[in-house]
C-alpha cells in the first residue's frame, strides 16, 4: 500500500514505506491456485474513495446539466453571499458568481491537467524504461544518469520553473508536470524490465529467434504493465494537487475561467470577510486528493502480486 506523496524514486530501498503487515518471505513462484478469489476485492475505504472519484468525473462530464449558473456568469450586487442563500448552495464569490457552479465546471480543467501529465509521463516513462532496460549497458547508463539529474531538483520547484519559462497556460502546465513525472515512472519501468529479463520465458523467446521489438512488446511489456499502471494510478492524486498548485500560482488556466487552484488564489483575499466561502475550493482539492490516493492505494493492494502472499 503506497500513496505517492512526492516525486521520489520508486525503486529505492525504503521507497515503499508501507507494506502489508508481515509479508512472509515466500518464494516468487508461490502456487497461484491456492489463492482464494474472494480476497481480491477492494476494501470499503477504497470503494468509497472510488465512488467519490467517479462523482468528480461525472460532475466534470455533466457540468452543463448539473449547474444552475454558468461558470462566468455573475451579478456584482450578489457578491459573497453566504452558503444556501438565493439558490447558491455554496454561496457566491467576489464577483457574484455561483461557487458551486464554478467548482463543477472547474473540475474539467482541474482533472484534465492532473490526468494528462500522468498519461503522457506513463507512456514516455515506459518507453524510456524499456529502452534502458533492454538496451546495452551504455544506453542504459545514458538514460538512467540523465534521469538522475531530475532527482536533484525539488520536483515542485522544477515544474514551476519550467511552466514559468514556457509561460502560463494549460498546455504548458501539462508539459511541466509531465516532465517531472517521467523520471520516477521510467525508473520503475526499468527495474521491472530488469526483473523480467532474467525470467526463463525470455530466454526461450530469445532462443526461438524473436526480435528485439517483438520481445519488448509481446513479452516484456505485458509483464511490466501492471506495476506501471498501478504506480501511475497512485500518481494521479499528486498530479491533481500539483496541477492545482500551478493554477494557484497563475501558471495554469487563465482567469476568469474556473479552475480549482485559480479559485483558491482568487478566494484567498476573502479569508476575513467570507471565511467559509474562501475555503471551498481548497477543501474540494483536499477531498479529491484524499479520494484519488485512497482509491489508488486500494487498487494497488488489489493488483499487487506481492500483497497476495499475505
Amino acid at each position: 500500500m503506497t500513496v505517492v506523496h512526492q516525486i521520489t524514486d520508486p525503486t529505492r530501498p525504503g521507497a515503499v514505506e508501507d507494506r502489508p503487515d508481515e509479508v512472509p518471505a515466500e518464494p516468487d513462484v508461490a502456487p497461484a491456485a491456492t489463492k482464494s478469489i474472494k480476497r481480491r476485492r477492494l476494501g470499503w475505504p477504497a470503494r468509497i474513495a472510488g465512488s467519490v472519484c467517479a462523482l468528480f468525473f461525472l460532475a466534470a462530464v455533466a457540468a452543463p446539466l448539473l449547474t444552475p449558473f454558468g461558470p462566468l456568469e455573475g451579478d456584482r450586487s450578489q457578491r459573497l453571499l453566504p452558503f444556501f442563500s438565493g439558490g447558491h448552495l455554496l454561496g457566491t464569490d467576489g464577483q457574484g458568481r455561483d461557487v458551486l457552479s464554478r467548482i463543477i465546471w472547474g473540475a474539467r480543467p482541474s482533472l484534465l491537467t492532473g490526468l494528462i501529465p500522468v498519461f503522457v509521463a506513463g507512456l514516455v516513462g515506459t518507453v524510456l524504461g524499456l529502452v534502458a532496460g533492454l538496451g546495452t549497458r551504455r544506453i542504459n547508463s545514458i538514460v538512467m544518469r540523465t534521469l538522475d539529474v531530475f532527482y536533484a531538483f525539488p520536483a515542485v520547484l522544477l515544474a514551476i520553473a519550467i511552466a514559468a519559462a514556457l509561460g502560463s497556460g494549460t498546455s504548458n502546465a501539462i508539459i511541466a508536470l509531465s516532465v517531472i513525472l517521467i523520471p520516477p515512472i521510467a525508473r520503475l519501468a526499468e527495474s521491472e524490465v530488469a526483473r523480467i529479463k532474467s525470467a526463463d520465458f525470455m530466454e526461450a523467446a530469445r532462443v526461438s529467434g524473436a526480435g528485439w521489438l517483438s520481445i519488448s512488446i509481446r513479452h516484456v511489456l505485458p509483464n511490466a504493465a501492471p506495476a506501471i499502471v498501478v504506480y501511475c494510478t497512485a500518481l494521479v492524486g499528486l498530479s491533481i494537487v500539483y496541477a492545482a498548485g500551478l493554477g494557484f500560482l497563475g501558471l495554469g488556466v487563465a482567469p476568469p475561467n474556473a479552475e480549482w487552484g485559480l479559485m483558491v488564489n482568487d478566494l484567498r483575499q476573502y479569508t476575513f470577510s467570507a471565511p467559509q466561502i474562501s475555503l471551498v475550493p481548497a477543501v474540494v482539492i483536499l477531498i479529491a486528493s484524499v479520494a484519488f490516493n485512497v482509491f489508488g492505494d486500494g487498487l494497488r493492494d488489489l493488483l499487487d502480486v506481492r500483497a497476495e502472499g499475505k
Partner: protein
Amino acid sequence: MIRFLLRRIGLAVPTLLGVSIVIFVTIRIVPGDPVASLLGPTGSAEARERLTKDLGLDAPIPVQYVKWLGNVVQGDLGRSIAKQTDALPYVWEAFRNTLTLSIFAALVAILGGIALGVLAATRRGRVASGFSTAVSLFSISAPQYSVGLILIVYLSAGRGWFPSGGMRNPTGDSGFGDLLNHLWLPGISAALVPLGIIARMVRSSMLDALSADFVESLRARGIPEWKVRWHAFHNALPSVLTIAGLQVGYLLGGVIFVEIVFSWPGLGLVVFQSISQRDLPVIQAGVLVSALAFVVINLIVDALHGLMDPRIRR
C-alpha cells in the same frame, strides 16, 4: 569512511553539472527573442547585431553554456529584472528564511511521524493503529495550500490565536518567541506530508524489526516489552533517519505554497512574485539555490547514514 565520503562527493559533481544544464535549458526555452524585447520594435538591424554580440548570443550554444556556467560558479546568477539588483544576494536572504521554516517543519514532522508510526506498529489491529494509519494517509494527501488556508480561517482569522502571516511582528521585539509564534501555522502546514511519510516508514521499519529473531530471543529472556520495543526502535532508526533527512530537502523546495499562503518571506514567495513579474533570473537563481541545497542535504544524509550503518560503506 573518508573514501566513502569522497566517492559520494565525486558522484554529486556530474549531478550538479546536469542540474546546471537543465536550468540553462529553461533559460533558452523562454519564448520570444530577448534582443527584440530589449530593443523594441524600432531597433535597426545594425543595433540588433550589436546587442546580440554584446549579450553573447551570437556564440554557439555550448560556448554560451560554458560562459554562463563560469558566471554561476563565481556567484553571478544574473540581475533581477524587477529589483535591478544582483539575483544571488536577494535569493540568498530569502533562502535563509526558507531554511528556518523547513527546519522547524522537519522537527514537527520527525517527532510527530515517529510518534504516529510507533503507535501504528505497536498497537496493531486496534483502534489506535487504524487511527494512525488513517491520519498518516490523510496527511500525505493534504495539499499544503488547503491546510494552510484552513488553519488560517479556524485558528487565526476568526480566533486571533496565531498571526495569519509574516515572519515577525513589525512592532514586536522580533525575538525568538515572536518568531516561534509566526512559525506554528506554516510549520504545521508544511510538516503534514513529511509527517505522514515518516510515520509510514517508522511503522514498516518497526514491524520489520519486531519480527526479527533477536526480538524473539529478547522476549524469551523475559525482557520487559517496552525494552524490547526500544531495541526494535533502535534498529529501525537508521532507515528512518535517512527518510527524515531527505524530507528536509523536499521541504526546502516544497514549502513554496505555504510561504505564499502565509506571506513567509522565503524563497517560495520570492519565486511566486517573480513569476507575475516574469523576472526569470530570480526564478532560475531560486531553483538553482534550492537544487544545490537539495544535493548538499542528500550528501549529508548519505554521510550520516554511512556513519550509522557501516554496511552501506561499500
